[in-house]
């Protein structure tokens, strides 16, 4: 059902609510058609073997190489004007080595027989330079060898085969649909597509060839008050980026939703400024995915917990591990959070990670209790004691990723999802019906969280007041402030599968040099009791 149809027919609409996610992307709903290679690229395999041999000859105990070609296309518009059309390709490779338990990494955009040898040797030289200060050598957890792996994103239509005119026409039509709404004044819209061909090889004999697609249509509508004293925007955060093809543009129906985005931007101008205080919150998954990302996905990164990101992304409140793993109550009994790289169309979904490991689905939170953490091969061994106590082997979850050939791979979050309510399909009406004084929040907005992931503040796209179980008028200037453990334990109910939606982002930053990860987060709508809401308006 299209979102607008749903809204028209829903009992929620009668309550004044014009927001609801589309139930989608639970496992197995897509029917993929293959694009990309079905056999490995022989030339790349030859280059990879050459580099690995050069690294070993130079003294590396272990080595791997990624050879990538990344093509992206971007089209941007504002109102009735094109503001950018670009089509970009970058190719290159990165060689990573271990010398006496110390890492080295070098990369080049010049993909030739001679250059892979030079760069492999350079990586070994660098590892030797770093070895002088070594205190604890790096060890790698065992991994299965995959000698001939091939994997492709499950897309239906290659976005690079769609003519540019069709893409521009779609954006202009969406802009026009937004501008027909009285009071909407500016529209920015864009589409972004990516195809990444990623060849991986390591000195243990794993060789994989993967083709990954991503698609992201988006728009922002801005309304300006007639006296020029106020302006308000509504971004299309209901449309998430996905690891899909052109079909994601048509299926997500930005064209159909554009008038609603415009109407809500205009409505914000006359919305009531929120009274600060404590409210019960109903968070739609179009909003909640980002709170989940910041307050669950980031603090359960093992490298962060162990201090490796302390200079930028920070550490985690989850420390020391023995006080948390298996005992820390993150939230209520019905709270289950899963890390996975297998959901079709989700941004982190792959066949193998960037160190050749086939990812596994795993429970980060099971029945409300912290159960596991995100790992690479290096990091899985740091949890040996915990896994042994659980009767499990220490193996990587397959959470290694690098944003490009030029960047070294490290631990990055997979898709991390809050599962729907386990026992029945709890509806949005049920979540709302029990609230005397609350706010329902749609779409992600402003976000900020401290470096140990305790204190966070989130805005949104639209805010509507809930009074006595009914959704009433729009509010503005809303942000809520949380302390992570209290916030999840204040969740007294979450929605069922019919409220589930997968949000996500391209630009999740971590590491130095900062790298962007692309991840999806699926979740149902949730209800949280007595959350602090502040008013963000300031008069100049």
């Amino acid at each position: 059902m299209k979102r607008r149809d749903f809204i028209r027919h829903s009992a929620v609409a009668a309550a004044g609510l014009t927001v609801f996610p589309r139930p989608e992307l639970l496992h197995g709903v897509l029917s993929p058609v293959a694009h990309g290679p079905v056999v490995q690229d022989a030339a790349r395999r030859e280059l990879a073997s050459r580099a690995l041999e050069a690294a070993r000859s130079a003294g590396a105990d272990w080595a791997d190489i990624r050879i990538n070609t990344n093509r992206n296309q971007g089209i941007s518009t504002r109102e009735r004007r094109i503001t950018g059309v670009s089509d970009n390709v970058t190719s290159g490779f990165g060689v990573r080595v271990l010398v006496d338990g110390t890492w080295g990494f070098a990369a080049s955009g010049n993909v030739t027989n001679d250059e892979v040898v030079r760069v492999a040797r350079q990586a070994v030289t660098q590892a030797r330079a770093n070895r002088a200060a070594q205190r604890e050598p790096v060890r790698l957890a065992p991994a299965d060898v995959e000698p001939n792996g091939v994997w492709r994103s499950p897309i239906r239509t290659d976005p690079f085969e769609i003519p540019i005119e069709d893409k521009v026409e779609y954006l202009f039509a969406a802009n026009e649909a937004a501008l027909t709404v009285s009071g909407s004044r500016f529209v920015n819209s864009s589409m972004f597509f990516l195809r990444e061909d990623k060849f991986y090889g390591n000195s243990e004999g794993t060789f994989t060839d993967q083709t990954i697609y991503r698609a992201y249509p988006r728009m922002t509508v801005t309304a300006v008050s007639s006296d020029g004293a106020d302006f308000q925007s509504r971004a299309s955060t209901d449309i998430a980026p996905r690891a899909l093809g052109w079909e994601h543009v048509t299926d997500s129906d930005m064209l159909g939703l554009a008038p609603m985005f415009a109407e809500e931007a205009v409505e914000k101008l006359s919305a009531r400024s929120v009274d600060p205080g404590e409210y019960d919150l109903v968070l739609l998954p179009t909003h909640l995915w980002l709170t989940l990302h910041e307050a669950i996905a980031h603090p359960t990164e093992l490298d962060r917990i162990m201090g490796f990101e302390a200079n930028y992304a920070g550490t985690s409140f989850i420390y020391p591990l023995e006080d948390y793993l298996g005992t820390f109550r993150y939230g209520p009994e019905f709270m289950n959070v899963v890390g996975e790289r297998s959901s079709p169309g989700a941004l982190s979904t792959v066949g193998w990670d960037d160190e050749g490991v086939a990812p596994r689905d795993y429970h980060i939170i099971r029945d409300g209790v912290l159960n596991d953490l995100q790992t690479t091969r290096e990091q899985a061994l740091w949890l040996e004691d915990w896994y042994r106590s659980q009767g499990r082997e220490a193996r990587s979850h397959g959470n290694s990723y690098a944003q490009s050939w030029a960047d070294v791979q490290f631990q990055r979050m997979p898709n991390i999802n809050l599962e729907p309510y386990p026992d029945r399909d709890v509806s949005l009406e049920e979540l709302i019906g029990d609230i005397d004084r609350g706010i329902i929040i749609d779409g992600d907005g402003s976000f900020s969280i401290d470096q140990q992931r305790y204190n966070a503040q989130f805005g949104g796209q639209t805010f509507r007041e809930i009074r006595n179980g009914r959704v009433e008028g729009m509010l503005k200037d809303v942000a809520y402030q949380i302390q992570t453990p209290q916030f999840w334990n204040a969740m007294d109910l979450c929605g069922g599968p019919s409220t589930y939606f997968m949000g996500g982002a391209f630009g999740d930053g971590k590491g130095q040099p900062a790298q962007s990860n692309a991840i999806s987060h699926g979740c149902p709508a949730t209800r949280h009791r007595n959350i602090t809401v502040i008013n963000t308006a300031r008069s100049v």
Partner: protein
Amino acid sequence: MAFLSESEARELTRRVLALSQADHCRVNISSDMEGNTRFAQNQMSTSGDIQNTTLTVNSAFGLQVASSTTNRFDDASLEQVVRTSEALARLAPEDREYMGELGAQAYPDSRSYYESTANLEPDVRARAIAEVTEQSVAEDLISTGFLTHRSGASCVATSAGLFAYTTDSRANFTTTIRTPDGTGSGWAGTSVNDWNDLRTGELGSIAVQKAIQSREPRDVEPGRWTVVMEPTAVGNMVNLMMNSLSARAADEGRSFFSSPGGGNKIGEQFVDSRVTIHSDPEDRRIHSTPFNNEGLPNRRTVWVQDGVLQELNYDRYWAEQNGREPTGFPSGWYMAGGSDTLEEMIASTERGLLLTRFWYIRGVDPRTILFTGLTRDGTFLIENGRISHPVKNLRWNETPIFMLNNIEMMGAPVRISSGESAGLTPTVIVPPLKVRDFAFTSTSDAI
């Protein structure tokens, strides 16, 4: 390997322009050598040395414009990148605001390239980091940090006869040192163009002292506080205003710099009369680039003079529409200061907070340039003119506009590491400030 020389860049642009069949063509080249080393738990963690050159072709037929980028330079790849940009341009709708390509320009004398940085090897990075890790180990602390550098060339050439080439080198070093019990954390960092100007050992010493002094912080209540802001925290805030200087957004009524009755605030006093901010490629302290992506010269620009808005950021189209000179983008900026020292600011404060730096700064309301973020890695209570003890970090919701209206004291400007991720950003030089009524909205247990 090295980045492209001027003659190599000229030859490459000549090959591309010769292939062009468009009415107008522009070629941009970026050619870089980058190196970095990270450290954690008092030893190196990961590092990288990267070599890359990218070339972007911008093609226009009349007002139809598109671009394509590659990093391969064999004849077939160059032909392909030119044809791709041309094919896209032919299919694109007309861009009525396309201004064509610039002819030859005169550029300011900007010098920001240093061989000392260009020749940096991994073993030199390792030794510079050891100056920090050794201090940390000696004090039984845990050091982490990041050293990064890039040297390279930027080049612009057009079918209208413009050719511009410049070189630049930059390095950035930051370190966060924590106590093993997790109750203390200290930070220090800066950026340079000339590697010889970087003193990692001195920065390490500052971070060590802050880590030790910040142990076991106590709660303070959120609310309006007088704050003594170290330069990094000041730069974090003023950057937010400098990124909001679009003339067009102001004229369209969707910016703090919009005037309520239409137009913008140029000519109005909007902050304290001691605030003056400028950009200047020929100012040797700022080390900014001499031209922008279109090959337009980056000229000296005074953005704020004595608290009065002097200039907004005009691109070529919006400048022509409004009868003004285009500004390019401020590639580095300098905020003038005063003669007060940090010690004098603390000594003059009856009750206030000393702030080292900010974290996770995100926009909340563009109407007032209101942002939120948190203090981090060295937050202290000042009582009766002295630092009395460390305090827990606080979340703020504040705008640089209010902050620059509430200045009490100003110190001497210094160069900072201005990006949250400690990457290689344009130069920011700012003074420490003492400011009243800075708005904190909650506290955090994060160390």
